[in-house]
C-alpha cells in the first residue's frame, strides 16, 4: 500500500536542515555572546588595571607620611569608557583610606596579592561594578607595607561593547545560516530532481506501456528505477502469459464445444424412433441441446469478456470511427440474425448517423465487442420489429446508441444488470427458458465504456422505444490538426 499521506521528503529534509541550523544557531549565538562578553571585559579590564597601577604609582612619602596624588592620566584612561561611573580608593598598609571613596575597600573584595593586580565583579552602593585592584610596596613609609588601590567602574561601556560585538556576530551568523539554508533548499531540490523525473516519466507514458524506463538517474536511485523496471517486466510477462492462455483457451474450448454441439444436433436429428421411450429420449436430447447452446454462449461470452478485459488494460487506444463501427456491427447482426431462433422474423435493422466520421479514441475491437453484445441483447430480448443503431457527434464526445422497440429494462434493474451474471430476470424469463441467468453482455459493454473514460446509460425515448447509449470521449481530431 502507498501511504501517500506521509510527509513530503522535501519537507522532511528541509525541516531537519532548519532544525539543525536553528539549534546550531542558538548554540553559536550563546557562544558568540559569551566570547563578546569576554572580549569586552578583557579590553576594559586592561584599562582599569592600567589606571589602578598608575594610581598606585602616584603614592609617595613625604617626611615619612604616605601621600597619594592620583594622576589625570589614570582618569583619562578610565574615561575611555566615557559614560561609566568611577569609584576608587587608595588604602595604606594600616587600611586607612588615603584618598577616594572611604567605603569602597570594605564593599569590594578583589585581592591583588601575588600578581600585583587583579580584577573581579562586585557591587558598590547598590550598583554592579567591575573591580580592579593593584598594590605596591612602599618601603620608606613610617610603617613600610603594601599600598592597595581599589578601582570600581560601572559596566555600561563594556556592556555596550559586548552587545555590539554580539549583535554583529549574530548578524553575520544569521546571514551565513540563511545562505546555508538556501543552499540546503537548492541541494535538496537538486537531489530530489531525478525522483521527480522518474515520476514525470511514469505519469507521461501510456499506462499500457510496460517497457522498462530508459532515463539517466544517479546511482542513489538506480535501485528504485531497477525495481520499477523489474516490476513492469514481470507484469508484462504475466500479461503475456494470460493473453496466451485466453487465446489458447478460446481455441481449445470453442473447438470441442462446437464439435459437441454438432454431435448433439446430429443425435437429435437421428432420433426418429417412436414410442414413449423415444419420446422421452427426444425430450432429453432437446434439453441437452439447449444446455449445450447455453454453455457455448456463456463460454464465448466469458472468453470475450476476458479478451476485452485484457485488451482494455493493455492495448493502446487509437482513433475509431463510431459510424463505421455501427454499420459493421449492424452488418454482423444482419448475417447472424438470419436463421437465428431468437431474432424475431421480419426485423427491420436501421442505421442513423452523420455523413462525417465520428472519431473517438479507443480500441476498435473492444468497442465492437461491446456494441455487438448490446445488439445481441436487443435482438434476443427486446426488438420486436425494428433495431436501430444511432451515432451522434456531441462535440467532445461521440455517442452511439442501440435502440429497439422492445419493453426495455425497468429502471430499478438498470444498475444491477451491468454486473456480471446479473442479466435482468425480466429479460431472462421473457425469452425461451434456456436464456435464464445469461448476461455478461451488459457487463462487458459497461467495462469497455468505463475503460474508455465514457458512460453507459439506459434511456427510454419519447416515442417509447428503449435505448442503450455509449458516450465516448472524442479523439483529439488529429486529422483536422494535421
Amino acid at each position, binding site marked *: 500500500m502507498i501511504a501517500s499521506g506521509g510527509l513530503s521528503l522535501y519537507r522532511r529534509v528541509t525541516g531537519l536542515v532548519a532544525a539543525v541550523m536553528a539549534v546550531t544557531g542558538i548554540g553559536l549565538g550563546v557562544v558568540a555572546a559569551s566570547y563578546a562578553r569576554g572580549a569586552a571585559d578583557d579590553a576594559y579590564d586592561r584599562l582599569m588595571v592600567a589606571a589602578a597601577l598608575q594610581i598606585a604609582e602616584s603614592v609617595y612619602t613625604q617626611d615619612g607620611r604616605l*601621600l*597619594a*596624588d*592620583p*594622576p*589625570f592620566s*589614570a*582618569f*583619562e584612561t*578610565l*574615561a575611555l569608557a*566615557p*559614560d*561609566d*561611573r*568611577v*569609584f*576608587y580608593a*587608595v588604602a595604606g598598609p594600616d587600611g586607612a583610606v*588615603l*584618598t*577616594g571613596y572611604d567605603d569602597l575597600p570594605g564593599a569590594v573584595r578583589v585581592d591583588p596579592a601575588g600578581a600585583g593586580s587583579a580584577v573581579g565583579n562586585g557591587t558598590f*552602593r547598590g*550598583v554592579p561594578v567591575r573591580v580592579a585592584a593593584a598594590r605596591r610596596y612602599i618601603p620608606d613609609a613610617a610603617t613600610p607595607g603594601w599600598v592597595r588601590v581599589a578601582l570600581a567602574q560601572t559596566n555600561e561601556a563594556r556592556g555596550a561593547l559586548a552587545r555590539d560585538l554580539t549583535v554583529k556576530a549574530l548578524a553575520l551568523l544569521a546571514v551565513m545560516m540563511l545562505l546555508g539554508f538556501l543552499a540546503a533548499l537548492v541541494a535538496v531540490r537538486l537531489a530530489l530532481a531525478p525522483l521527480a523525473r522518474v515520476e514525470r516519466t511514469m505519469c507521461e507514458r501510456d499506462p499500457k506501456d510496460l517497457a522498462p524506463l530508459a532515463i539517466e538517474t544517479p546511482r542513489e536511485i538506480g535501485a528504485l528505477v531497477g525495481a520499477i523496471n523489474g516490476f513492469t517486466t514481470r507484469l508484462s510477462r504475466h500479461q503475456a502469459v494470460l493473453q496466451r492462455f485466453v487465446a489458447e483457451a478460446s481455441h481449445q474450448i470453442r473447438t470441442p464445444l462446437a464439435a459437441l454441439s454438432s454431435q448433439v444436433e446430429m443425435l437429435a436429428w437421428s432420433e426418429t424412433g417412436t414410442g414413449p421411450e423415444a419420446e422421452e429420449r427426444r425430450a432429453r436430447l432437446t434439453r441437452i441441446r439447449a444446455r449445450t447452446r447455453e454453455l457455448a454462449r456463456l463460454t464465448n461470452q466469458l472468453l470475450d469478456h476476458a479478451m476485452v478485459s485484457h485488451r482494455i488494460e493493455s492495448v493502446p487506444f487509437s482513433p475509431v470511427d463510431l459510424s463505421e463501427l455501427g454499420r459493421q456491427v449492424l452488418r454482423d447482426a444482419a448475417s447472424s440474425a438470419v436463421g437465428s431462433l431468437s431474432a424475431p422474423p421480419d426485423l427491420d435493422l436501421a442505421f442513423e448517423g452523420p455523413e462525417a466520421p465520428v472519431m473517438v479514441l479507443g480500441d476498435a475491437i473492444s468497442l465492437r465487442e461491446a456494441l455487438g453484445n448490446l445488439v445481441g441483447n436487443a435482438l434476443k430480448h427486446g426488438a420486436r420489429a425494428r433495431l436501430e443503431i444511432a451515432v451522434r457527434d456531441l462535440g467532445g464526445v461521440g455517442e452511439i446508441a442501440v435502440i429497439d422497440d422492445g419493453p426495455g429494462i425497468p429502471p430499478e434493474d438498470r444498475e444491477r444488470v451491468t454486473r456480471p451474471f446479473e442479466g435482468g430476470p425480466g429479460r431472462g424469463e421473457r425469452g425461451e427458458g434456456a436464456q435464464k441467468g445469461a448476461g455478461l453482455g451488459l457487463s462487458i459493454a459497461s467495462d469497455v465504456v468505463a475503460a474508455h473514460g465514457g458512460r453507459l446509460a439506459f434511456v427510454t425515448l419519447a416515442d417509447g422505444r428503449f435505448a442503450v447509449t455509449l458516450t465516448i470521449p472524442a479523439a483529439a481530431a488529429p486529422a483536422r490538426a494535421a
Partner: protein
Amino acid sequence: MSASARLALLVLALLLGTGAARAIETHRFPAPGSAAVTLSLHAATDIAAMRPLIEDFQATRPDVAIVYTEYVTAELFERMRVACEGAGGVDLVLSSSVDQLLKLVNDGCAEKLGLATTGLPRWTRWRDELFGFTFEPAVIVYNRDAVRPEDVRRTRAELIDLLRADPERYAGRIGTYDVTSSGIGYLFSAYDARAGAVFGRVMEALGRARVVLSCCTTDILDALAAGRLAIGYNLLGSYAVAAVRAGAPLRVVIPRDYTLVLSRAIFVPKRAPHAEAARAFVAYLLSARGQARARETSFAFGFDGNTVPEADGPALPPASAILRPIEISPELLAIQDRAKRARLLGDWRSAVGAPVDAGAR
C-alpha cells in the same frame, strides 16, 4: 608684607565679606500663564546671567514657575551632597564648578534625561545626566587706563616677561581667584597646572607681584573696572565681556598659547519633584534657541568658537590646537580627589606666597 598690601588685603576681605553675605538669595519667576509646576533651581551662577534664559524658557513653557536659589559653589556642593543622600526637593542643579557637579553625578545623584544627541560637543555631557551648556574661555583682563596698550600681553610667557621686566609697576595690582575659596579658580588652576610647566612660573611671577586674591569673578571685575586692579588673570571670559558691554574700561584678551574653556553645567537630581519640566528646561538650554539667547544676553561665546568683538583673541573652533576644554568626564574626579586637592593647594600656596588663611570668607 608692605602696608599697601595689607590695605589691599583689608579691602579684599571687605569685598569677600559682601560676597559671602550675598550667598543664598532666592529669586522668584512666576509663571506667565497659570502656574502648574514650580521648579526649584539651585544655582551657583549670577542671577543676572540666567534671568534672560529663564524668562525665554518661560515663554515656551508658560505653565512653569521657577524659584531660583543662588549659592556660592562650595555651599551648593555641600547642600547637594546632603540633598542627594536624603530627600531632595530640588529640580535642577546648575554650577560653574563642573568638577563638583561631576562628583555628585558620579555618586549617583542625577537622573538620565534622554538628551544624549544634542548639537553640542561630546565633551559637554556625561552619562546623559550632566550637561554643559556654555562656552566660557578663561581670559586675561586688562584695565585700559591702567595698562598701556603696548603692555598688553597675549600669552602667559609674555605676561611673565612683563611682570619680570617691571616688577613694581603692577605689584599689588594683579588679581586672580583664591583657589581655596573659588571653585572656578581651583578648576582653572588645576587645568593650568596640567596644561604645562609655564603655569608654575606664572604663579611664581604672580606671587612676586603680590597678587590680590578673590573668591568671585564679579569682585575682581569690579576692582578692575574701578582701576584698583590693572590685570586680572584667568577670569571667566563671559563675565568679562558682559562687563565690557556694561561699559567697563576693560580689554579682554584670550590667551594665544592655550585657552581653557569651561562649560557651565546642569543636572536634574534623582527623585526631582518635577522631572518633566526640569528636563524641558535643560533641553531648552541645549537647544538652538537657548544657545542663541545665552550668547545674545549672557555668555557671549558660542560652541562654534567664533570671535567676539569685545574680546581680543583668536577664534576657537572645535578643532583648534589651543583650545583646552575642561571636559565633563571622569577626569574631573582627579580634580575632586582630596589628596590631589591638598597637594595642588599646597603647591599653589607656596607659589603665590599666600598665607594659609588668605582665602578666609
